[in-house]
């Protein structure tokens, strides 16, 4: 199987980071076409027909999101690029931000035009310093040459962009916590409804789109929605997806494939299979917010619908592979510790539940827990799902519950032998 490098087409070309290089690669042709020949509603229509769904994890139809925002009568409106990539195992946005900064600008430009936004922010996680520097340079160049600012490319449309650096908080990748952070507050999630498309930044209509989503937009506008849809593998699989493959594989990396490529194709054809001649034990198709899948599920297509039907989730496409020597108790502790640390603390089930699950697992690790406590974890997890303001509370127990359900032996062995059967060394 081969990659379909559309979004990643120019990321290995250093000159692409300069405006002249980007223009040579066909950059800003889509923006010109949109601003000069299309109405905002035409742009929305083409994106709706492309079936583009958000690439940040939630998978909400982008065209619909824009339409809702455009229909709101309040002004001003805001277009925000969510560049707070933080899902463990996800590293696709960093590649785009560092190596195709003008694509983000062009995507934002077209999106802002569609919804009627005059101001845009790139909310960039604080650790992505290289991306920050390159984005600032690109924005400066774009401003000088009239791609950002007043009356862009001689049109009536004006748009300004600022890069806003985060300061170390995974939850600020959740759109409402992101908005709180932009407003100078702690990253606590807001309850929805109302949705940001109506009540967003400073209470105004706001669209928050992921980096990969925005980078897809110029291609859709330039080549049409039929072209875009045909890039996918069919049956509600539209366009391409950058899958971030990592873990115990021979060739980890970002791979852009038709939406709906299978786990087997990604892990074995592209990723070179399991390293050191080991066997596959499990894989998280959407990072630790998703449920784990096993070798039986290798022919599952990696798209929103298929993975949901398989009891898991595509999310951002962070495919993390674990081999036969992996201790699932350690994986469970690592994933729940992440959520316990990153929880904003607002909702009691998330704040207390993650910590409680972590404490039980730490006792399972050293053989001090009983088997009944595994059922307690299940109970806790079920009470966290759907009872919190945001998806962190829901995603957090997913990994742990799926690990206990599919690899119960790993957990029970720890209880029985009062320790780790693999004698995994813990720092």
């Amino acid at each position, binding site marked *: 199987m081969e990659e379909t490098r559309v979004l990643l087409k120019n990321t290995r070309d250093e000159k692409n980071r300069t405006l002249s290089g980007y223009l040579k690669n066909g950059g800003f042709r889509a923006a010109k076409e949109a601003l000069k020949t299309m109405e905002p509603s035409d742009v929305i229509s083409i994106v709706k027909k492309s079936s583009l769904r958000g690439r940040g994890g939630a998978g909400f139809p982008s065209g619909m999101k824009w339409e809702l925002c455009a229909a709101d009568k309040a002004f001003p409106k805001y277009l925000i690029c969510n560049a707070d990539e933080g899902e463990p*195992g996800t590293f696709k946005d*960093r590649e785009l931000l560092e190596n195709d900064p003008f694509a983000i600008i062009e995507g934002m430009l077209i999106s802002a035009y569609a919804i009627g936004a005059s101001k845009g922010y790139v909310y960039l996680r604080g650790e992505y310093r290289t991306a920050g520097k390159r984005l600032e340079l690109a924005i400066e160049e774009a401003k000088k040459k009239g791609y950002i600012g007043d009356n862009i490319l001689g049109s009536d449309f004006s748009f300004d962009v600022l890069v806003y650096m*985060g300061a170390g908080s995974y939850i600020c990748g959740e759109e409402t916590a992101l908005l709180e952070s932009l407003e100078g507050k702690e990253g606590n999630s807001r309850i929805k409804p109302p949705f940001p498309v109506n009540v967003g930044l400073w209470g105004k209509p706001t669209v928050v789109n992921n980096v990969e989503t925005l980078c897809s937009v110029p291609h859709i506008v330039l080549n049409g929605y039929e072209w875009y849809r045909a890039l996918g593998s069919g049956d509600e699989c539209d366009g391409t997806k950058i899958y971030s493959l990592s873990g115990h594989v021979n060739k980890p990396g970002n791979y852009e494939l038709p939406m709906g490529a299978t786990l087997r194709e990604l892990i074995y054809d592209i990723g070179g299979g399991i390293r050191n001649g080991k066997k596959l034990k499990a894989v998280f198709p959407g*990072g630790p917010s998703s449920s784990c899948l096993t070798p039986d599920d290798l022919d599952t297509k990696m798209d929103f619908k298929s993975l949901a039907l398989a009891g898991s989730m595509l999310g951002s496409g962070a495919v993390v592979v674990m081999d036969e020597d992996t201790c699932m108790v350690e994986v469970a502790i690592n994933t729940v510790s*992440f959520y316990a640390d990153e929880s904003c603390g607002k909702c009691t089930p998330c704040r207390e539940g993650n910590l409680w699950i972590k404490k039980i697992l730490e006792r399972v690790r050293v053989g001090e827990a009983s088997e009944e406590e595994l059922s307690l974890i299940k109970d806790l997890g079920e009470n966290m799902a759907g009872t919190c303001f945001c998806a962190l509370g829901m995603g957090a127990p997913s990994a742990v519950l799926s690990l206990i359900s599919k690899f119960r032996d790993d957990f029970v062995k720890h209880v029985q032998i009062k320790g780790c059967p693999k004698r995994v060394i813990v720092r």
Partner: protein
Amino acid sequence: MSLSPELMSELEQIVSRYEQPAGGLLPSLHRVQEEFGHIPEYALESVARLVGVPKALAYGVLSFYTLFYTEKQGENIILACESFTCSLMESEKVIGEVERVLGIKAGETTADEKFTLYSVPCLGDCDKAPVLMINWKMYENVKKEEIASIIDTF
């Protein structure tokens, strides 16, 4: 103690870019930390006053975000990823070695104030796991055996 007029003027400029002054809180804190390496209390007070929020609220924000420091840091800040993929790739051995070589635990600063070490969540470079960032520079595919020589370069 107070912030210099030049820095205050810069901060006023920063804050003016945003629709409401509170939008300039995080950017101001970033600028102050860039200047001093951390955010001293008197600086926090000035920023809070500038953006028009109560000091307690500004402190809440400061303490919420893990990249803002309230105390003086070592000359070199090491961020060692402890998240999912890095841990699958034995990041514990790497972090443990950094702790051993420096003689400190994660979260601490060396006695000579040369290094501060933090274990941090996913840095977004998982295909090169395990990774470290030192002064925002990424060190990839880090092996335990390389740690001593990496530290020596500082």
